[in-house]
């Protein structure tokens, strides 16, 4: 191989590497959750909770609430198990009555009007349709915020080229409108944008 072709390839490969590997890690700012939490333990057979045991509608019924400390306290007023995270929950938060500053993965931006009640109650869509297997997850991953757009990676899509294989891979507008199309719901801008 001559040196010209080699240089060309070096440029190509170098740039592909930067673009596919370094760029994504630079693009997102990682924000760790304040406390570890296993959805799997809670929804598993031993405990057997469902999503709406903790994620209830907010007072204005438009969103699902991130559980507050009072939800946790119902069971965890004292340490029940052996996990380190639970011990921290009791010591750092329950004992001081301090709310846990959870970092929300999938909060829609200000210009989107998303009403959970319309999707969950009226259209009867399963949580998994959009949130995937989050309810079965063992740990809480870091929230990743796009440094340019400010969006959470859960909304922009975990897969960097923006592809979607499963329904919950992305929560972009196209994904909403695809589902609306499938179900014959209106795709008018007005219905979801504010």
């Amino acid at each position: 191989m001559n040196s010209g072709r080699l240089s060309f390839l070096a440029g190509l490969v170098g740039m592909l590497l930067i673009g596919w590997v370094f760029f994504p890690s630079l693009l997102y700012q990682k924000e760790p959750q304040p406390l570890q939490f296993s959805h799997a333990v809670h929804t598993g057979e031993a405990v057997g909770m469902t999503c709406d045991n903790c994620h209830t509608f907010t007072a204005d019924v438009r969103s699902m609430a991130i559980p507050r400390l009072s939800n946790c306290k119902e069971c965890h007023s004292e340490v029940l198990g052996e996990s380190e995270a639970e011990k921290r929950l009791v010591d750092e938060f329950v004992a001081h009555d301090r709310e846990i500053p959870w970092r929300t993965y999938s909060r829609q931006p200000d210009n989107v009007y998303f009403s959970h009640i319309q999707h969950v109650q009226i259209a009867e869509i399963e949580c998994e349709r959009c949130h995937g297997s989050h309810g079965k997850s063992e740990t809480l991953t870091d929230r990743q915020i796009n440094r340019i757009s400010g969006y959470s990676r859960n909304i922009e899509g975990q897969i960097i080229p923006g592809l979607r294989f499963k329904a919950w891979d992305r929560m972009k507008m196209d994904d909403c409108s695809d589902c609306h199309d499938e179900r014959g719901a209106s795709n008018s801008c007005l219905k979801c944008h504010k």
Partner: protein
Amino acid sequence: MSSALSRRNILKLAGGSALGFLLSPMPWKMLDDISIWTQNWSWIPKLRRGPVTHKYTSCTLCPNACRVNARMISETPVSLWGAPDPCVGHSYLCSVGLAGHHLAYHPSRVRNAHRFTATENGISSEQLSVEDAIAHIAKILHNIHVRPEEGEFALFDCRPHGMVSDIQQIFLSHVLGARYIVPDHHEGRFMRALMEMTEDPGQSYGLDFSRTRTLLSFGVSLFEGWGISPLVVEQFRSRREEFNIIQIDHHQSSSSIVADTHIAIKPGTEMALALGLAHVIVGERLYDPASAARAVDLKRNKPFSFMDLTRRFPPGRVASVTGIPEDVIVRTAREFASNRPATAIADDFAPAELIHSVWILNHLVGATGKNGSVVQKRPLPQPWKGAHRTPPTRLRNVPDHSLRLLMIDASAADTTVSWPDLRRKMRAENATIVLCSPYRPKRGESVDYLIPIHAPYETVRANPSGEYVATSAFQISTPLWSKSEEGCETWQILQRVVSASGAMTKEEFAQLEPEELLRLQCDAIFNSKRGTIHHPNNDETIPLGSVLSSGDFYATLMEGAAWSDDGVATSTNGRLFLMGKSTSSAQRFAESVLAFDNAGIDSNPSFPLLVVPVGEDVAARFGHVSPILSKIYQESDLKPRSRFAYLHHETARRFKLAAEQRVIIHSPHGATEAIVRCDSSVRPDTVQLSVSQLDAISPTRPRIINSYGGRVYTDQPIFVRIERARS
């Protein structure tokens, strides 16, 4: 060779990189993210999230005390709406009231006390704690107390109304030599003029338009601003078709546009028209027989009596004076006298003789003491009935250069006082003005101390109903923000200043707290066992008698309920004095009528145009109203603007002027610049200017009724000529 080779390799490397760049997600992701970034710029505010709740309170911006339904997100009000109000009968807010929740965030809001000192380079300001400011002022007050010859101490109440003013008056009575000053003109003057003409001295009156069929308005701002406006608008809203408005106006205001009939009158001749109408009513015997029987003057026929004076205003003469056709005058008189209940109204700021003449019309058609017109009402039960009060002094009656220390209560949103007039009352040297206001002084206001007080909706305020309302009412303006613990009210500052100065003669009020005062007021109402309570939550009205205790009553009011008094049976038998009850007032009226001469308002050939002044946009742009009112006053052309001179097309043609041309307006007193606007609604012999344009061309200061585009009165007519400005 090697250099050429490496250069070529660099090119190839660049080529490869370019291809790799395009095949990587980088450019596409960046393009996408950057456009998302433009949709979420960090300097665009983020929206609050939280549950929606509603709070009921009442608006304190004007004495009408409209009920307010505040939409709250996470304990912050995001919008205010009118709530059903059984006292006034309406459920809407005016444009200023709709944005009342912005006032806490007004750009000129202050949170610290300031001391201002005049320096060579203008005025410098220095922050200090409220305690320090109070200590400084207390020291001055102490000096006055010790050496009264240094000058007087006074409190200026920008809007004397309600419990706070009452407390201030009582409070000042315990400070030796203290004055309580009120503006020369303020709300309720029109209603109070009635006392001078009716028999029962202790009576108060209100306007009941609920059945009125004819409303004859002598230039009252029926649809712009405050005062009578809510009462009229409510009828307009609920029974437009049966409510006939005749608007007598010298320019085209909202009121004259919206009224059923607009009678365009030559400015300054309104009294002649009122007496002309009275002439027709008396001459054609259209008056109400019962009223005529009560009116003592209607039978007398001596020189300078009522009959003698009205005889001087036959329709023919009035037509030539006012510029209104004779048949219109006769027709209007007939309509007013026959389509009853009818009420005639004038502005609080109108000349005294006009107000008097307008009341004469009401007496003639039997409007006084009748449902659907002017009704008697019982005053609000007073908690400190026997308390000693410092009597109010009108600003113009305060001797010039007599005040050493003046505190100004500027808790009202709109102050109509003229600042130079106020300054003139201060001693030439060594005088101190303390402004108690939530906001920095406006342009042209020079004060020595500024002490911050609560903005609207930050504190509890007692809210009795306005002067015009037909029945007394009371509600409490509860704070929308919980943070309102800090800060205070003017009277509390006064309380602390006086306590610290040692000038207090009795300690009685030194310990009073606002909540205690409110409770006293509620006790007084509760003990009267009168009236009903309206609950906004369920829109229910219950009699006060069904409330168990004064404490419950207080709690209900704090939730946003309103108390309103029962109506009183109106008396119809007292005597009426058309010329005024006292000889001196009858004399004064007769003199002003006889002195009325149309020569005074005829134009002078070198100054052919009469100025019609109106309120202006400047007040809204720089005054203490929400900046969102820019929608009306800056971002649309709805209201008159201060840089324009409005002329009729004919006038413009006559003086060879064109729209948008720059002109100079000359009066015998000076000149000012403006831009011509043509408006067919302006009378051909007049030019419409705004108040601030008058400064240079008027010998006296105009009296502003409301500075947000409404009516303005001048003591003397101003005549001008207009010339094109040389560029």
